[in-house]
């Protein structure tokens, strides 16, 4: 069991009488890159919100590295080792890029109430922040306001912040949404590099990204997992095609 990072056991979520997710079972191994695909309204974002703590599941258990996180508040889940990004870019517009990253790194070093910026730990925080900036090619942008960056750069900042908290499970919600083809290819390389040695779960619509990046894929349809398998298996499966073609034909 130790090589399982995230485990969902019969997780369900209802909003009032609407059952959005029913009986989701999913195990994600350490170091795996897992993609969630499915038509709009299948419940992908809801599942993300349950795992990251935005909502509490109606029933079922979610465990991260062996400890239950289902129903905890977001900051507790983050401290348990989970970082997430958002479908709509969530950077701190009026803070500089460096401040954005620093905010995520500070917490990892336990500096959540610090009034002073002194001592060796702050040297480490500064060094780690600069290393992340360097790794994302954002050093030249460090002192620009995040809101003034180009869209694709803001997405990069967002991924840096998600990784910067030191989380070993990363949830990315449509990381390539709204990007051009070249930008997308750039982001795939970037995600692969940034999540090296971590576990990744992502929601993605772009099949090229999914098949390029993911080790395994889960197809979510109408609040249930239709199937889980390698990209090749998913591509070959008739039910998946039907689900997507049905969606496409309206």
């Amino acid at each position, binding site marked *: 069991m130790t090589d399982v990072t995230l485990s969902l056991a019969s997780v369900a979520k209802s909003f009032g009488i609407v059952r959005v997710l029913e009986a989701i079972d999913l195990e994600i191994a350490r170091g795996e890159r897992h993609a969630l695909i499915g038509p709009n309204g299948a419940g992908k974002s809801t599942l993300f919100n349950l795992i*990251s703590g935005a909502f509490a599941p109606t029933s079922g258990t979610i465990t991260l590295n062996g400890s239950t996180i289902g129903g905890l*508040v*977001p*900051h507790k889940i*983050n*401290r348990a080792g989970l*970082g*997430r990004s*958002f479908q709509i870019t*969530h*950077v*701190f*517009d*009026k*803070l500089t890029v460096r*401040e954005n990253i*620093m*905010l*995520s790194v*500070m*917490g*990892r070093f336990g*500096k*959540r*109430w*610090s*009034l*002073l*910026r002194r001592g060796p730990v702050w040297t480490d925080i500064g060094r780690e922040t600069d290393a992340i900036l360097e790794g994302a090619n954002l050093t030249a942008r460090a002192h620009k306001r995040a809101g003034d960056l180009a869209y694709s750069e803001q997405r990069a900042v967002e991924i840096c*912040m998600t990784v910067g*908290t030191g989380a070993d499970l990363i949830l990315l919600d449509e990381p390539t949404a709204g990007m051009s083809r070249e930008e997308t290819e750039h982001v795939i390389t970037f995600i692969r590099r940034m999540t090296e040695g971590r576990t990744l779960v992502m929601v993605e619509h772009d099949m090229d990204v999914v098949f390029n990046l993911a080790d395994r894929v889960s197809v979510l349809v109408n609040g249930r997992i239709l199937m889980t398998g390698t990209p090749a298996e998913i591509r070959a499966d008739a039910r998946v095609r039907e689900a997507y073609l049905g969606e496409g034909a309206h």
Partner: protein
Amino acid sequence: MKSIFYILIAALAGFLIVLPYVGDLASQNLAIKVMIAAIFALGFNLLWGQAGLPSFGHAAYYGIGTFATIYAMEAIDKGGFLPTPLLPLVGAAAGFAFGLIAGWFATIRTGVYFAMITVALAELVSAIAVKWESVFGGESGLRSIRSDWGPFAFQTTTSVYYLTLVWAILVMLFLYWLQGSPFGLIVRGIRERELRVKFLGYDARKVKTLVFAVSAAVSGLAGALLAISDESANMVLFQGAGSAFVVLNTVIGGANVFFGPVIGAALTTCFGYFGANLSHFWMFYLGVAFVATVLFAPEGIGGAIVERVRQVRAGERAPLDLSDVVNLAALILAIVGLIILVEVTGTICSESYRAAVASGQGVWPAVRLMGLSFNPFSPLTWIAGVGGLLLGTWVLLKQGLAKWPSFLRRAELAHPVGTGETK
């Protein structure tokens, strides 16, 4: 540009230090009131400008600071050991304690609901202050006296002035430092995107509660200085006007600039001091200034100054040029137009004017204003008023000093090509 800034700061510091030697008692009292209002506004703006939390009930913590300090002064007078110069800490502690409780409640909700809880709590405190006469002294309020401490005597206005000045500087340094601290970074993060902060592992609710308490503590400190200055406290302090004034000061001065609230507090306090003697309608003008700022220049005076400095630094314009003269002229024109309209309308609607009309057999006497006579039946009066106001405002909007609020900016939709506006 930086040297100019330092020269300005040095000049201001020099002015504040020598004020008691060059100014009379009234000017010292005014300066004390300005500094107290400035501290209060800075404390309020920690919550609003930094954390993005709108509190419309900050008079409660200000008043609590004042009353706590009056009680402490009474204790010193009866032989207590607290040094008089440290009295403001009593107000700060009282504000902090109440702020912690109020903040815990208010931060249960966000946005407009947060604001409503702050209003409700302030009303609650105000209602209690009315009921508990034995604690708050009823309508006549409470009095106490300043005690000397060691070699320091606090009987003169000058001594109070310097005490207030020292505390004002300390509070400013503290808040400025807090803003730049790692904790301040988290607070600004909450203002920008609270959800993101939560998902970065921070307990946003606790951070907000603490910021609320610190903001209330600074407000309580301002209230304490008022107690020291006036040697009295009255339950009027808890009424809504106090909460409204601090919002007004902050908005006029500019909430996004550290010194903005200080500018706003200085202007409105001085305006209240001088304007109250000049016109019955000074509060109305203040209201107009507030509404005009919110609609046409939401960044406030501080924001305008910062923007100008940025432009000059970037070499986009000269520090001062012809357009400033035009803007100033237009602003004066608009204000004069407004004054004519308000004073003439206000005067002819007043009871004393009705009496004058009745005694003059129905003849409406002219209204004396700025050394001129304005006949209420002459179209010229109204043309001058409306014309001045509209023309001045039009020029300001045209020049770009004032901006149409976004919901009135139809032109922007029609012409998507940028007009040079950054926002």
